[in-house]
């Protein structure tokens, strides 16, 4: 997002925006459906992250190139069709690379189309800027999304199966928390991550202005 009156962001800022300041999973809480559905293992999470990044990059490039010729009234429909095209490519690509992965991710690859994050990026960023900048921003967003998915997937795999990337971590006596790989676990783990981020953000200004922080705490 460019706020008027500020110095224009550098390329590095554009790139880092998606990874930290506007992280799609932890800050904006967008694109949750794939984030929760496929993150039962770290491998699935990374594959989903890579597929989404590819679609983000492709759609950002095309939307940015066409930003002057698409009429305003039909822009959303145009974006959706562009995104759907790239998702179809990814869908066939994954099926060609690994059938096992394709079956694990199932319909959720095609559901990348309706990942609100991608349409949101197309509308809020790619349609306003030149291709280079749009691509950098899309790459940052994609990596940020992948990090978020990995954070979810690794925790769920470690707790739910006692493994990471299929490698056992705790020895034979570990009793897996099966609930973590079931749907409720997805909600719990994401909730816990958000909790952590909230806590971190709330305590940051505390050392400088302890009085204000104490006042805020008493409201809760």
């Amino acid at each position: 997002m460019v706020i008027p009156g500020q110095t224009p962001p550098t390329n590095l800022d554009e790139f880092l925006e998606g990874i930290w300041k506007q992280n799609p999973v932890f800050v904006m809480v967008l694109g949750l459906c794939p984030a929760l559905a496929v993150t039962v293992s770290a491998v699935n999470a990374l594959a989903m992250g890579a597929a989404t990044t590819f679609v983000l990059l492709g759609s950002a490039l095309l939307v940015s190139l066409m930003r002057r010729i698409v009429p305003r009234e039909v822009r959303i429909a145009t974006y959706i069709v562009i995104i759907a095209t790239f998702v179809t490519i990814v869908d066939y690509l994954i099926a060609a690379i690994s059938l096992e992965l394709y079956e694990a991710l199932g319909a959720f690859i095609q559901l990348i189309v309706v990942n609100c994050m991608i349409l949101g990026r197309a509308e809020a960023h790619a349609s306003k800027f030149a291709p280079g900048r749009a691509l950098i921003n899309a790459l940052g967003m994609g990596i940020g999304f992948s990090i978020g998915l990995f954070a979810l997937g690794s925790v769920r795999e470690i707790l739910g199966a006692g493994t990471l990337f299929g490698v056992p971590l705790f020895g034979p006596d570990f009793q897996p928390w099966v609930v973590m790989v079931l749907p409720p676990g997805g909600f719990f783990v994401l909730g816990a991550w958000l909790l952590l981020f909230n806590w971190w953000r709330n305590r940051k200004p505390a050392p400088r202005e302890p009085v204000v922080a104490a006042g805020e705490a008493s409201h809760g």
Partner: protein
Amino acid sequence: MAEATLTQIFLATVLANNFVLAMFLGLCPFIGVSGRLNTALPMGAATSFVMLVASLCAYGLNYLVTVFELEFLRLISYIVIIASAVQLVEMVMKKYSPALFRALGIYLPLITTNCAILGVALFQTAREYSLAQALVFALGAGAGFTLALLLMAGLRERLNLAGVPNVVQGTALSLMLAGLLSLAFMGFAGLGAGE
């Protein structure tokens, strides 16, 4: 799969495989609109309606796409159909209930990007449902979505009165609640035997 009875499909989609709580479809509106009961119900109804229309259209489209061997166009044509259906619902609602139209705000056009709708279309294709089965499936998905939305809205209205620490407030709390609801819905696993 194809021999599952209609009742089984309906029960399985409403309870055991609830779209929101067990399959994580349609989470954006689930977190976004479930703050109050009086917007949750119309949102659920609008989504269910779009689901039914989308399911019907997807069935016809799938037939066409298969006949002409254009499978790679399936996804694109589905999403275009859904976007048109949402546009229709939006126009009808704006004409007959402007207040509701304003209350739902941005979440109404966002039904297009509601994964639950495309999910209905994709899953009915993947499971090779017949027309009747597909429609019952869409109906069950809509009912399940509305049920989850209503349950969540009720819980969150009650939570407004509860003293919750600052850190937990907001989406984190909603997700934890959804987790508990999802845990409760796990109790229905196996019901309908459609899976």
